[in-house]
């Protein structure tokens, strides 16, 4: 093994929601499985486990990704933010409150992914219209079909941000 290459340590260091964790992992472990099965952060959901549904959406260095298609080892030294990490002073995030107000869920399984994606969408400045929200939320599927209420919830938060600016 060349010095320029480094075997994945069996011990992987992950920074999640500001906390540093060291975990023993098989090198095949995805970030999603590391979060759920090793760090007991089960807010992030496993839907298709193949990058198609968005239920496992988290932020990596502030950008939304699907955690099922990245190895935990690839995330060493980077900031992971999950749905457990978006509360503000113990209160739900504005997006979470809007989802409740607008009944933007039925079974709730896709909701953590929807919320993480929506938070990212707002930060990207892509909530300018309902069409734009639909386009840039398309990576998050909702089996229950709560889409109209999800769009309404995001539209409301985007409006609040616009007026508070």
């Amino acid at each position, binding site marked *: 093994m060349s010095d320029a290459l*480094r075997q994945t340590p069996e011990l992987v260091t992950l920074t999640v929601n500001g906390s540093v964790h060291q975990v023993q992992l098989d090198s*095949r472990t995805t970030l999603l499985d590391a979060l759920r099965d090793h760090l007991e952060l089960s807010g992030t959901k496993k839907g298709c486990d193949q990058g198609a549904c968005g239920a496992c959406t988290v932020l990596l260095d502030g950008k*939304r990704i699907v955690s099922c298609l990245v190895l935990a080892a*690839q995330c060493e030294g980077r900031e992971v933010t999950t749905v457990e990490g978006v509360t503000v002073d113990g209160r739900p995030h504005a997006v979470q409150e809007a989802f409740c107000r607008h009944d933007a869920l039925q079974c709730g399984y896709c909701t953590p992914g929807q919320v993480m*994606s929506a938070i990212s969408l707002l930060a990207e400045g892509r909530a300018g219209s309902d069409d734009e929200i639909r386009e840039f939320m*398309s990576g998050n599927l909702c089996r229950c079909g709560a889409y109209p209420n999800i769009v309404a919830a995001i539209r409301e938060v985007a409006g609040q941000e616009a007026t508070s600016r």
Partner: protein
Amino acid sequence: MRGFEYVRATDVGSAVALVSGDPGASYLAGGTTQLDLMLKDAVVPQGLLVDIGRLPLRGIATDGDVLRVGALTTMEELAADPVVAERVPFVSEALLAGASTQLRNMATIGGNLLQRTRCRYFRDIAVTDCNKRTPGSGCAAVTGAARMHAILGASAHCIALHASDLCVPLRALDAEVRVEGAAGQRTIAFADLHVMPGERPDVETVLRHGEMISEVLVPLLPAGTRSGYLKVRDRVSYEFALTSAAAALSIEDGVITLARLALGGVGTVPWRATEAERVLVGAPATARTFLAAAEAAIQDPFTVPGTEFKVELAKRTIVRVLRTVSGEQS
């Protein structure tokens, strides 16, 4: 079965040496194709994965009339580039028409060029007839559900589609790729990168084992040239193309002086419509010309019952994108 190993490369040379020296090794960049095929579908055998994600191959620079795009630049990063928006807007349109924001934040430009087909028979290990996986075993797609398959460059050996959106405008622009290998660096014309399946659908590119794309060179369009990308699909977002077309046109006094046209959703490789470009250049920018170009673009298609509709749909896609780019109100 061989074990799964992961190493993180810290420089290009050692990454290339490691993969070149191990027939079972492969590169890991964004991972959205590689991990899907290796861990989820088990279509690609597990072996050594060399993570190149932190190599200094990320970023976009303008070099005269060429955009130099580091292979590890993400799809979202390239789509947001101001020079792309101004000089080759159809590249940005194609990027944003593909995948989801989450995947575009992960997937790299180099990886996009080398993405594997979405053919459901290729990706289903329970299907034994797949010439792409096992040369000589046959093709289950030819008699299967083929709505998402190719009609150009296809044959009874293989109808697997090259599903990239980005590759369509890059093919139209005559982009080039810089490649690092054990024998040094070389530059490959985009037209030569992907190989038609012929009787060996398992051979998809001219890259030798261990070669790594380091940079993509994207020629910028002349000022005044307009471009557009049109993608037709079964749902309005987050879906692969049934047909798509990337077009760039310069028009002076109603006459087309420059035409570039490439197609997606129809080819086993990113497809350049050279014959259609010949029809367009020197002709008046009219609906009649666009229709003639569309007819010229789709020659000798290989169709199966599931893909017959693509012949007409591809022609209409071409006409529509040409009308839009030319500024004609349809």
